[in-house]
């Protein structure tokens, strides 16, 4: 959302002006504070901006409800206290401790992620909460038998920060230091959000299974979210410990976590500018409630309840004038209403006109081979001892009554379940038991029968997600905008736009920026296909591509599928119920019933097969 108005449209010159303005403001503001009390709040605001943005990585970008976040803040703080005070008589310099504690905390984040990765939603929340409680209990009780944490009294008198001989003690310098890091985190957040990482996380938040099936390594990405959040929290903890010159268990307790959550939610999960604003508001406003004691925390509780009921997207989410360039989907550039016939027929059905010759035909080499695949769901044989061979650039249709095991077959090939027995070979290498994202990497991608688009992402981003497995930029090349990352981003955009434009103007132009959920049903089906194609797949598996389409749309999608092979050389495996479609596109047809292949051959053979007719219509009584 904020991409629209913050970075893309800013030229280099504007950027320099923006940075200069921010720098000026940050240089001046500390001197405008009326007293040290407000200067302290100003500095703490910077710290909260960091903390909220760190939480925003885990909870906002990736949608993981991590309630141990405050423990990472604490770990960062205590590491600094351990390594830079009289407590253990270790006095490492700040410039070494800061990265060290951030990295160690990141390690803890990684470990927490690895243990709780399998859990979702409420369970993840409660496990992370239990971790946070254990952390707090350890802080409180590890002062006996040997004094490690200092117990309730914490650790104080930490070493002052020494930057190349310059001792930082003045509050103004601290405000510069902390806001400097806050700005770094803001900048990093923007960069990461607009990268393959940001898209991968957003896809996971929208629909984890679909993200995995489009090539996003969801396990790894979730770990990266935990680690990234912990890294920022650890660095904030270190800065906080030094700023406060002490650490206590109470600094890292549950209420603190709630405050940070409120900031992120007030701003809108995932919305960077919103979160920054939320952090600033909630650092300053409650100061005016200070005299009222418990009202302050009560108001945080109310903020959560009211926001969830009335504005779950946060204060900055989807405010019209901030998301410029967003046009009404039913109007064209000039604001004139489009008629629905325009949308359907403008492109026309040019495919089978003019008698152009197909570029590609069925090849001889097998590309996909299933050998004796069985899928046993606790006694129910969804697929039973099935073997099939798919040749290069072949269009093979799978038909069969409901419950015949067609979709299960797709799930097996795409790696969503490993088969109970048997092997799957793609381009003569064994892909049995690979995870879905690895199958995508090998070159197979699928669509979903029930449409599993990333509904709240733009059409273009839906397609861009698919390039995840084709790109390699790590966090460092993204954060520093290294040439590799820039090159990959350009390539990603090119592929995504190319694939979307295969459907004429239906998914292009103003539609690029439109959320997938606002597309018409048929367009969402088309986007499913475009998204699958954007993975650079060689083999497309289409699960009922024409389901729910009207006759006109069905004719169009039928010729489109044929064109995919004839014109672009894709190999296609398709499940379809409409026999007209099957008849038109298929080189070969396989009929399944109760997980068993009952017929195979060209369409006319299969359609007239006695067993197939029985499977659909039942057996005649003798």
């Amino acid at each position: 959302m904020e991409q629209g108005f913050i970075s893309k449209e800013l030229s280099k010159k504007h950027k320099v002006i923006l940075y200069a303005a921010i720098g000026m403001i940050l240089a001046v503001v500390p001197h405008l504070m009326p007293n040290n009390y407000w200067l302290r709040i100003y500095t703490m605001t910077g710290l909260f901006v960091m903390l909220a943005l760190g939480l925003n990585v885990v909870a906002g970008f990736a949608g993981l409800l991590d309630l141990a976040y405050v423990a990472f803040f604490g770990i960062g703080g205590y590491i600094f206290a351990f390594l830079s005070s009289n407590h253990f008589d270790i006095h490492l310099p700040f410039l070494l401790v800061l990265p060290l504690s951030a990295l160690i905390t990141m390690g803890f984040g990684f470990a927490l992620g690895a243990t709780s990765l399998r859990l979702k939603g409420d369970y993840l929340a409660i496990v992370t909460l239990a971790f946070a409680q254990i952390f707090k209990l350890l802080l409180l009780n590890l002062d006996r038998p040997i004094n490690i944490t200092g117990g309730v009294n914490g650790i104080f008198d930490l070493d002052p920060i020494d930057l190349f001989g310059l001792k930082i003690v003045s509050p103004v310098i601290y405000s510069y230091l902390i806001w400097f890091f806050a700005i770094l985190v803001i900048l990093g957040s923007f960069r990461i959000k607009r990268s393959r990482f940001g898209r991968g996380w957003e896809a996971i938040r929208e629909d984890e299974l679909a993200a995995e099936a489009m090539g996003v390594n969801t396990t790894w990405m979730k770990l990266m979210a935990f680690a990234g959040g912990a890294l920022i929290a650890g660095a904030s903890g270190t800065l906080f410990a030094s700023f406060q010159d002490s650490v206590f268990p109470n600094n890292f307790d549950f209420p603190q976590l709630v405050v940070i959550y409120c900031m992120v939610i007030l701003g809108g999960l995932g919305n960077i500018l919103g979160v920054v604003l939320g952090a600033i508001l909630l650092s300053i406003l409650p100061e005016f409630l200070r005299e009222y004691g418990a009202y302050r925390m009560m108001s945080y509780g109310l903020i959560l309840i009211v926001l969830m009921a009335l504005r779950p997207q946060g204060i900055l989410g989807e405010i019209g004038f901030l998301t410029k360039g967003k046009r009404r989907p039913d109007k064209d550039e000039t604001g004139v209403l489009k008629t629905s016939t325009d949308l359907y027929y403008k492109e026309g059905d040019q495919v089978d006109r003019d008698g152009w010759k197909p570029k590609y035909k069925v090849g001889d080499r097998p590309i996909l081979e299933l050998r004796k695949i069985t899928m046993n769901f606790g006694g129910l044989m969804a697929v039973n001892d099935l073997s099939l061979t798919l040749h290069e650039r072949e269009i093979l249709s799978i038909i069969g009554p409901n419950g015949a095991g067609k979709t299960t077959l797709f799930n097996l090939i795409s790696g969503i379940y490993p088969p109970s027995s048997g092997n799957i070979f793609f381009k003569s290498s064994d892909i049995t038991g690979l995870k879905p994202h690895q199958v995508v990497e090998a070159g197979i991608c699928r669509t979903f029968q029930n449409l599993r688009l990333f509904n709240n992402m733009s059409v273009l981003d839906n397609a861009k997600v698919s390039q995840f497995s084709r790109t390699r930029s790590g966090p460092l090349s993204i954060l520093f905008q290294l040439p590799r990352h820039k090159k990959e981003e350009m390539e990603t955009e090119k592929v995504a736009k190319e694939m979307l434009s295969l459907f004429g103007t239906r998914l292009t132009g103003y539609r690029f920026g439109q959320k997938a959920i606002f597309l018409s049903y048929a367009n969402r089906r088309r986007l499913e296909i475009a998204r699958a194609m954007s993975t650079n797949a060689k083999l497309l598996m289409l699960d009922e591509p024409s389901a729910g389409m009207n006759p006109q749309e069905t004719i169009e999608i039928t010729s489109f599928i044929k064109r995919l092979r004839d014109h672009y050389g894709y190999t296609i495996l398709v499940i379809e119920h409409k026999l007209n479609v099957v008849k038109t596109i298929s080189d070969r047809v396989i009929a399944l019933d109760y997980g068993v292949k009952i017929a195979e051959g060209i369409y006319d053979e299969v359609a007239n097969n006695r067993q197939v007719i029985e499977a659909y219509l039942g057996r005649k009584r003798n």
Partner: protein
Amino acid sequence: MDFYLQQLPQQLVNGLTLGGVYALIAIGYTMVYGILSMLNFAHGEVYMIGGFAGWWVLHLLSRGNAPIIHASLVISLMLIVSMLVAGLLGISVERFAYRPLRRAPRMNLLLSALGVSIFLQNLVLHYQGAKARFFHVSSLIPEDIRVFQIGNVVFSFMRILVIVVAFLLMALLTVMVKKTKVGKAMRATAQDTEAATFMGIDVDRMIVLVFLIGSALGGIAGALVGLLFTQVDYYVGFQAGLKGFTAAVLGGVGNIFGAMIGGILLGLIESLATTFFPATYKDVVAFVILIIVLIFRPWGLMGEKIPEKV
């Protein structure tokens, strides 16, 4: 080792008492989870407010430290009022914080529950202060039955009261869920809300009922713990809630009978743990159990992979 064996019967009694309380709390979690698939974060706060309700009844019915009416009446009133207050609180929380979010993503519901928890906790902090309130129970019970000993196991009247009340309520609930028409409707709603609607069950009413019963049981648990450990403060709900949830998870979330067993099991484990670890680490033991169970057997110790709900 002899020392531990000698301690064992005593720890079993202590564990059973604690377990009864955990089970009562766990039932509230599990019933709500069964029907709404949400973790009611505020349930611990409901427990805490139940404890305060019990304290106020005792306080208002006492002059000095002695009750002004018969002690058995005081205790009964404490338990009944705590159930009523907690039950009504549970219903209002559902009405104002959860019902508007019935169709929202789960994360929103969870965050709203977190908000309710924080709100209630600080509401109590504001009106009741941070200091613990003491239950002057000594005058309620005649000295000769206050504490007594069988073999080398020490019983107290309150322990027995807690065990009896907890198990009685659990038995009642079991009968209600298994044998009555309302219980059947509740189980049906938990299994499939939509199908239950089509069969003519008023799902909203079932949800209210679940919140009423679950919260009432949580509330009475608060009052019982007050009588047992003689104090309550605004912060007890957090830990107790987490324990209750651990118990619910042990038994398989969504499964009422499991919650009872899970609660008792957790109580026993905790008391036994205190013989081996310093008492300060007893909570750590409970949370480690929670984490291990959730990671390796998220459907609970006894449940099948898809637990029978409610």
